[in-house]
C-alpha cells in the first residue's frame, strides 16, 4: 500500500507539476500576445471616424437576429434600443421562439404589428414558422417579428437567418444590452482586414447593478452581489486576456453567443447553427473555420476588445451552477463533434494549436486539478505529505493567479476604463485575493458536474429565470 501511494506521490509531484508549468507558460504567452493585440487595435482605431461608416452607402448592411423566449418584462425596451442603434443600413429580426408568456403580444401591441403573407426561403431546416409580422408604422420599417414553434435558441437563430436579407448577421441574445456603436465597431474589421473575415466578436460585460433605463446602459457600477462580482473579474480575464491573445494568432474558437457578427453566406453554406448541442455558438465557429480550410480560402475570425454588450449574469448559485454546467457540456460536445481537428495540420492554427489547447488545458485542466486535490487529500490522510513543500507549491499557484488577475485589472484600467470609480477598482482587487478560495472551487465543482452529466447523457438547457432588468 505504501509503495503504491509513494508511486502516486512521485507521479503527482513530477508530472502534474510539469503540467502546471506548461499551463503557466501558456498564460505568459497569452499575456504577451494580448498586449500586442490590444496595442495594435488601439493604435489602428485611434484615428478612425466611425461616423463615416454610419452615413456611408458603402457600409455593409446588417441583419440583427434576436431570438426571444419568455422575455415579456423586457422585450419591448430591448427591441426599442435595438431599433435605435447607431447604424443606418440594418434590419431587426426578433424571433419569438414559441414563448409561453405574453412576449409576442407585448411586441404586437407596442409596435403596432400586423401579420403578413410571407414566403420563407427554407435554406436551413427549422421548426414551423407560425407568422411573420411587420409594423403599420412607416418609421418601423426595420422591424420584422417572426413567431414560431419552440425549438431552442439555435433553431430560432436559424429561422431568423432564413429570412435575413443582408450580407452580415448580428446574432444576439434579446436580453443583452447592446452598445449603440456596436455595429460600427464590429463592422470595421470586415472591411479593413486583408483576408476575408467570417466572424467578429466583442467583449461581453456584466450589467448587474448598472443603471439601466429603458434598455440602455446609463452608468456602469460594480455589481452588488459577491457572486456577480467574481464573474466580472472572470469575464475581464477571459475577454481582455484570453480572447485578445487568440485573436492575435487567428486561433479564436468561440464568438460569444451573446453577440457576434457573421458572414451570412458562410453560415448558410455551413448549414446554420446546430440544434444538437447546447454550445451552439462555439460549434458554429468551429464548423465555419473548417469550411474555410476545406475550401482553402484564407480567412480570419476577429475580436474587438471594445465593451459592446452587457448581459445580466446569474447572481443566484443555482442558476450560475446550471449555466456553468451547460457551458461545460457544450464545450465537451463541440470538442467531440470536431475531434478530427486534433493535431491535424490540414487545419493550420486551428488544428495544431487552438483545438489541442482547448482539449488539453481548458478541458483537462479542471479535471487534473480535481484529481490532484483528491490525491492530495489521500496523501494527507495517510500522512505522506511534506507540508513545507506542499505549502510552497500552493503559494506559487496563488501568487501566480493573483499576478494574472492584477494584470487583468491593469489592462482594464489602461484600455477602456469602464469602472471609473476608485472604489470599484478596490473591490476588484479584493476579489482577486479571495477568488481562489471562494469562487474557483465553485467553478471547478460545476465543471466537474458538467462533465459527469455529459457522461450520463444529460441534454437540456435547464431553466433560466428571467427577472428582467430593474
Amino acid at each position, binding site marked *: 500500500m505504501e509503495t503504491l501511494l509513494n508511486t502516486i506521490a512521485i507521479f503527482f509531484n513530477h508530472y502534474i507539476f510539469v503540467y502546471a508549468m506548461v499551463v503557466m507558460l501558456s498564460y505568459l504567452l497569452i499575456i504577451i500576445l494580448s498586449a500586442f493585440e490590444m496595442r495594435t487595435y488601439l493604435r489602428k482605431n485611434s484615428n478612425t471616424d466611425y461616423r463615416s461608416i454610419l452615413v456611408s452607402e458603402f457600409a455593409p448592411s446588417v441583419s440583427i437576429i434576436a431570438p426571444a423566449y419568455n422575455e415579456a418584462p423586457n422585450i419591448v425596451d430591448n427591441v426599442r434600443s435595438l431599433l435605435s442603434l447607431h447604424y443606418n443600413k440594418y434590419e431587426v429580426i426578433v424571433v419569438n421562439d414559441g414563448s409561453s408568456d405574453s412576449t409576442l403580444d407585448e411586441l404586437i401591441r407596442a409596435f403596432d404589428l*400586423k401579420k403578413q403573407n410571407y414566403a420563407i426561403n427554407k435554406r436551413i431546416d427549422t421548426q414551423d414558422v407560425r407568422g411573420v409580422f411587420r409594423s403599420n408604422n412607416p418609421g418601423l420599417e426595420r422591424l420584422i417579428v417572426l413567431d414560431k414553434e419552440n425549438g431552442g435558441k439555435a433553431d430560432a437563430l436559424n429561422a431568423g437567418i432564413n429570412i435575413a436579407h443582408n450580407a452580415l448577421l448580428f446574432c444576439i441574445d434579446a436580453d443583452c444590452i447592446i452598445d449603440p456603436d456596436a455595429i460600427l465597431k464590429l463592422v470595421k474589421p470586415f472591411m479593413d482586414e486583408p483576408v476575408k473575415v467570417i466572424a467578429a466578436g466583442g467583449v461581453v460585460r456584466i450589467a448587474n447593478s448598472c443603471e439601466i433605463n429603458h434598455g440602455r446602459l446609463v452608468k456602469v457600477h460594480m455589481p452588488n452581489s459577491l457572486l456577480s462580482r467574481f464573474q466580472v473579474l472572470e469575464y475581464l480575464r477571459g475577454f481582455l486576456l484570453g480572447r485578445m491573445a487568440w485573436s492575435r494568432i487567428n486561433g479564436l474558437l468561440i464568438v460569444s453567443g451573446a453577440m457576434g457578427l457573421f458572414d451570412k453566406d458562410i453560415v448558410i453554406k455551413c448549414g446554420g447553427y446546430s440544434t444538437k448541442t447546447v454550445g451552439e455558438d462555439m460549434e458554429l465557429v468551429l464548423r465555419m473555420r473548417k469550411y474555410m480550410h476545406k475550401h482553402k480560402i484564407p480567412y480570419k475570425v476577429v475580436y474587438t476588445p471594445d465593451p459592446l454588450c452587457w448581459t445580466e449574469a446569474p447572481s443566484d448559485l443555482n442558476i450560475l451552477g446550471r449555466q456553468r454546467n451547460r457551458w461545460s457540456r457544450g464545450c465537451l460536445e463541440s470538442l467531440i463533434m470536431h475531434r478530427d481537428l486534433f493535431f491535424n495540420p490540414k487545419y493550420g492554427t486551428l488544428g495544431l494549436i487552438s483545438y489541442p489547447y482547448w482539449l488539453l488545458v481548458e478541458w483537462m485542466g479542471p479535471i487534473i486539478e480535481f484529481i490532484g486535490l483528491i490525491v492530495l487529500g489521500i496523501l494527507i490522510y495517510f500522512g505522506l505529505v511534506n507540508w513545507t513543500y506542499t505549502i510552497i507549491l500552493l503559494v506559487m499557484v496563488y501568487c501566480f493567479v493573483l499576478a494574472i488577475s492584477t494584470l487583468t485589472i491593469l489592462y482594464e484600467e489602461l484600455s477602456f476604463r469602464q469602472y471609473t470609480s476608485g472604489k470599484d477598482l478596490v473591490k476588484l482587487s479584493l476579489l482577486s485575493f479571495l477568488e481562489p478560495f471562494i469562487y474557483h472551487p465553485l467553478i471547478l465543482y460545476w465543471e466537474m458536474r458538467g462533465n459527469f452529466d455529459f457522461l450520463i447523457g444529460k441534454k437540456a438547457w435547464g431553466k433560466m429565470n428571467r427577472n428582467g432588468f430593474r
Partner: protein
Amino acid sequence: MEIINNYISSFYWGIVDLPKNIQIALVVSLVSFGLLIFFYIFLLTKRMVYIFYRSRDRYWNEQIMDLLNVFLSDVDDSLESDPVSKVLPEFRKLPLHKWFIKRMLYQQILNYHKNFTGHASEKLKELFLQLHLDEIVRKKLKSSRAPIKIKGIIDTAQLELTHFSPLVKKLLHHPSADIRIEAQAAYIILNKAHSFDFLGDVKEPIQDWHQLVLMDLMVKLNPNQFPHFSIWLNSENTSVVELCLKLIRHFQQFDAIENIIHLLEHPNDEIKLQCIQILGEFEAAKAEEALLDCYNRQITELQAPILKALGRINSGNQLEFLLKAAATPQFEIAYEASAALMAHGSKGIALLKHYHHLAEPMNLQIIDQLLGETNNKNHGNLA
C-alpha cells in the same frame, strides 16, 4: 555581520538542497509577488496621473473654448472687420509655450472647424495659421510613427493646408496601406484638379474600408469635376474596378453603360454582380439583350440579380421568360422573377394572378407575399 552572513548562507544552502520543482516554485512565487506589487504601484500611479490630467485639461479647455466662442460671435458680427486680429492677442496670452496647452488649442480649433461651415470655417483656418499651429501639422507629417503621420494627413486635408501638398504627395506610395489611402484621399482635396491618377498606378488591393474613406470625402466635392471612372474599368486591379463601379453607380455616370455591358464577361463574380445591379439601377434598356444572353451561363447567385435588373429595366419584352423563371422550384430565382413581373405593373401582375392557381405551394407563397406588399403600398400602409 557574521550572523547575517551565516543566516544568508544557510538560507542559500537550504534552497540549493531542495528538489528542482520546489526551487522553481519559489522563484515563480517571488517573481509573481514582485510583479504583483509592481502592477499595483503602476495602477495607482496611472489613476492619479489620470485624475490630475483630467482636472487640468478641463480648466484649460474651458478657457480655450470661451475664447473661441467669443471669436465665433465676432466672426458672425458684420460690424467686426477683422475678428482674427482682434482675438489674436487674447490667444497669445495663453501660456502656449506649454506643450499640452498648445496641443489642446490645436485640437479645439480643429474640432470647431469640423463642426461649423461657412464664414466661421474660413476664419478659424486663418486663426490657426496666424497662431502658427500648422507647424504642429508639419511635425506630424514628418513623424515616423504611423498613427501620428495619419493624423497629420487627416488634419491637413480637413483644413485644406495646400502648402503641405508636396509633403502629402511623397506619401502617396507609402508602403503602409493605411498611410497611403489617407494620403490619396487628402491629395484629392488639396489638389483642386481632383487628381485620381493614382487609380491607374495602384497595384495593391484597395480594401473596402479605404474605398469607404475615399467615398466619404468625395461626396463633399463637386461631382462635375470628377473624371469618367469608366477609364479604369479595364484595370488589372480588381479592387480598382470595384471602386470605379461603385463610383459610377453613386455619381450616376450613365456614359459608362457600354463599358459595363462588356464587363459582364469579367471572371470575377463580385464584379459581375455589381455590373448587373448597376445596369438594373440605370434602367439600361440596351443592356437587356446582353443580360439575357449571359443568363444561362451564370450561377444561381447571379441569375437572381439578372432577373431583378430585368424588372427594373421594365421593357415589357421578357414577360414570358420571367413567368417561366417565376415557376422554378428554386426560391431565389422564383422570387426575383415574380418581383420583376410585379415591377411591370398591371401586365405583370395579371400574368402572376393567372398563374396563381397552377403554382406550387412555395411559388404561391411568394406571389401572395408580393401581392400583399403591393396592396399595402397602394392603400397607404393601412393605419
